[in-house]
């Protein structure tokens, strides 16, 4: 460790580190705006400037390498004034509509303006009127609120490998746009929402479905039900100021019942159902020499990514719908009838950690017998808004269980919320399906805490299965290139669009804080460790559903309700 000086104190740093990293380790906070922790620094916004006390120069701490003997002042008059001026300049052409903005009270720019003491509009810039792009079923883009930090561009390109957005134009006419300024729905955007997580202002948000849901809740002719995804119960708490990783499953269920949902179901149940279908499909493909590797199909942004960039791999995708759609389908076509309800009188809502789920729910393939599987999708953030709107006080609620028959789950289903979770759940069940025995150690450590690419090789009664787990679409590209070239050595690949899986989905509480995501992940693993029912095929509610309604996994009814098709899409047309 070498040493430098910050605010008069000696702090350590490692060779090659930036000043910001050294400061952070020493517990000195310097605000950042354009900085993304896991990517190389760009130094575009200059909010992180600190004063070099030797020269009096301002240096961007995020991109400036720390050097031995260097001395910086992080909060000198000069540095503070520079930061304040930068924010004032960013605000010069910003619409002053914080009260009406989705990000009100939760906005990085607003917070910086407050912290740095911006109390009047000193600089007024020319504002260019621009249209809000509401064309996408998942994501809204308001270019007027954009401060051109480029975080969305970098997330889309460097993390997701999608590059739907980029800077275009020049100078004062610079803007973020899609290719040919097309609206998002026509662009290559896969709706993953990682840009929404990265955006420091209200320029990128999810397209809200709150109004539809509230209207449905008030409609006496509708029976409104909701399902919540495995990753929601461990992240929703953060929206209410509780620490990351708090599991509020029972309280959330109680809250949803309180505001009028007739039934609250657990998507982890249909994750178990997905495993039954998918493991059956995998075993079939492996034993009957079907198209291999088989790739998971739970992540709708990944589906659109494949359709757009890798149409050649579409036959490799499992035909299984995602757990959201599966549960939607059985609610509509089984539960409704069992309750004596007309299937169209049921209004089916899902709460998801995801923006792409909104896109998925609107896909034409997801309409069965004239009715969509899901009527409205809320992100974790919208769910929190809904609870706040109904003035729900979480601290006064007693936890309750989800409603049957779709409330009982195995912890394997719950693991769907993390990257590697589908693989782990599938391995547990595939082992049983192939060997007839349960896996001795249910924890498949090789696919846990996964980021990027992880591999695991299984030997099941002489049958060797090579499997891979990938999260983030950027990391998926090399794996897919191999599949497309027919050179992949895997039998089964799990792909999740977002880095780390759904716990870091585009619909989760904002921010790119890795520590937060790790805590959510730890919470999911703790739930699995504490569970007694840990494999999907032993879930009694699943068995009952097959006995009373579906028949057998991969059977006729399953194919009608639980499986789907994909369509190749072209870039730029």
């Amino acid at each position, binding site marked *: 460790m070498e040493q430098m000086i910050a605010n008069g104190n000696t702090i350590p740093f490692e060779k090659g580190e930036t000043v910001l990293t050294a400061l952070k380790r020493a517990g000195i906070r310097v605000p950042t705006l354009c900085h993304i922790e896991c990517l190389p620094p760009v130094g575009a916004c200059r909010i992180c400037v600190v004063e070099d006390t030797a020269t009096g120069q301002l240096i961007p701490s995020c991109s400036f390498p720390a050097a031995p003997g260097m001395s910086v002042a992080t909060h000198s008059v000069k540095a503070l004034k520079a930061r304040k001026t930068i924010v004032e300049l960013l605000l010069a052409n910003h619409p002053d509509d914080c009260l009406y903005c989705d990000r009100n009270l939760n906005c990085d720019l607003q917070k910086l303006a407050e912290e740095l003491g911006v109390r009047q509009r000193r600089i007024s810039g020319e504002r260019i009127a621009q249209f809000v792009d509401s064309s996408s079923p998942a994501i809204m883009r308001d270019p007027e609120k954009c401060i051109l930090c480029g975080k969305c561009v970098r997330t889309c390109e460097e993390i997701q490998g999608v*590059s739907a957005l980029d800077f*275009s*134009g020049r100078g004062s006419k610079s803007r973020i*746009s899609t290719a*040919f*300024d097309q609206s998002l729905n026509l662009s*290559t955007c896969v709706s993953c929402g990682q840009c929404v997580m990265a955006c420091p202002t209200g320029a990128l948000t999810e397209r809200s479905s709150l109004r539809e849901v509230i209207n449905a809740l008030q409609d006496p002719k509708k029976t409104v039900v909701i399902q919540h995804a495995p990753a929601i119960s461990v992240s929703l708490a953060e929206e209410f100021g509780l620490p990351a990783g708090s599991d509020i499953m029972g309280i959330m269920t109680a809250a949803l019942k309180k505001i009028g949902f007739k039934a609250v179901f657990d998507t982890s149940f249909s994750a178990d159902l997905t495993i039954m279908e998918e493991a059956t499909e995998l075993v079939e493909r492996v034993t009957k020499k079907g198209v291999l590797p088989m790739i998971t199909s739970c992540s709708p942004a990944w589906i659109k990514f494949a359709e757009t960039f890798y149409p050649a791999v579409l036959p490799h995708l499992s035909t299984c719908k995602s757990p959201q759609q599966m549960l939607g389908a059985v609610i509509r076509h089984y539960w409704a009838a069992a309750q004596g309800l007309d299937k169209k009188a049921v209004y089916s809502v899902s709460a998801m950690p995801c923006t792409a789920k909104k896109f998925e729910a609107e896909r034409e393939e997801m309409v069965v017998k004239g009715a969509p599987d899901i009527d409205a999708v809320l992100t974790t953030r919208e769910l929190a808004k809904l609870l706040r709107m109904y003035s729900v006080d979480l601290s006064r609620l007693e936890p309750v269980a989800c409603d049957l028959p779709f409330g009982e789950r195995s912890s394997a289903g719950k693991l769907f919320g993390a990257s590697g979770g589908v693989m782990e759940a599938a391995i547990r069940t595939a082992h049983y399906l192939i060997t007839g025995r349960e896996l001795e150690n249910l924890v498949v450590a090789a696919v846990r805490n996964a980021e990027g690419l992880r591999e695991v090789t299984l030997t099941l009664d002489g049958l060797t299965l090579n499997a891979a787990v990938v999260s983030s679409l950027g990391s998926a590209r090399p794996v897919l290139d191999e599949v497309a070239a027919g050179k992949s050595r895997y039998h089964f690949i799990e792909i999740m669009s977002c880095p780390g899986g759904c716990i870091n989905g585009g619909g989760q509480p904002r921010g790119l804080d890795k520590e937060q995501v790790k805590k959510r992940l730890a919470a999911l693993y703790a739930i699995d460790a504490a569970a007694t029912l840990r494999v999907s095929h032993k879930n009694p509610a699943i068995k009952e559903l097959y006995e009373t309604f579906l028949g057998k996994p991969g059977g006729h009814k399953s194919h009608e309700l639980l499986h789907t098709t994909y369509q190749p899409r072209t870039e*730029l047309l």
Partner: protein
Amino acid sequence: MNTKAQQILMKYPGAGRDKLIPILQEVQELDGYISRESVALIGRHLGVPASKIYGVATFYNQFRFKPKGKYHIMVCRGTACHVKGSADILERIERVLQIKAGDTSRDGLFSIEVVACIGACGLAPVICVNGEYHGKLTGEAAEKIVKSYQQREATHGN
């Protein structure tokens, strides 16, 4: 498919992103503009996303994304023309044609391009319509010229 762009790309086997601008220039030379199809082709050839190509192309004034009009109006915005009031001339023409520089009118008759210096500073401010130069203009005179082309189309066009 877009065979012209394909022919150009054949001259650049195994090229990387550093060849993007020369390729765009050649495509525009041949097609008169940068079409979506050609961007898709170039992107696949160079391994560069379409949004990035669009970003690069919009950085420069020289690239256009719609075919040129039957009458292509180049408005000089060089220093001499600027001093002599070319901003007013450009604005006037944009207003008469209801399109912005870089754009093509819906009927496909007119397009406007801003050029840095046309090389006729003695005649400033200058515009050039299909190779025909008009110098020492005023806003009013420029409007008249544009309208005369419109007139010509109205009487002789079909």
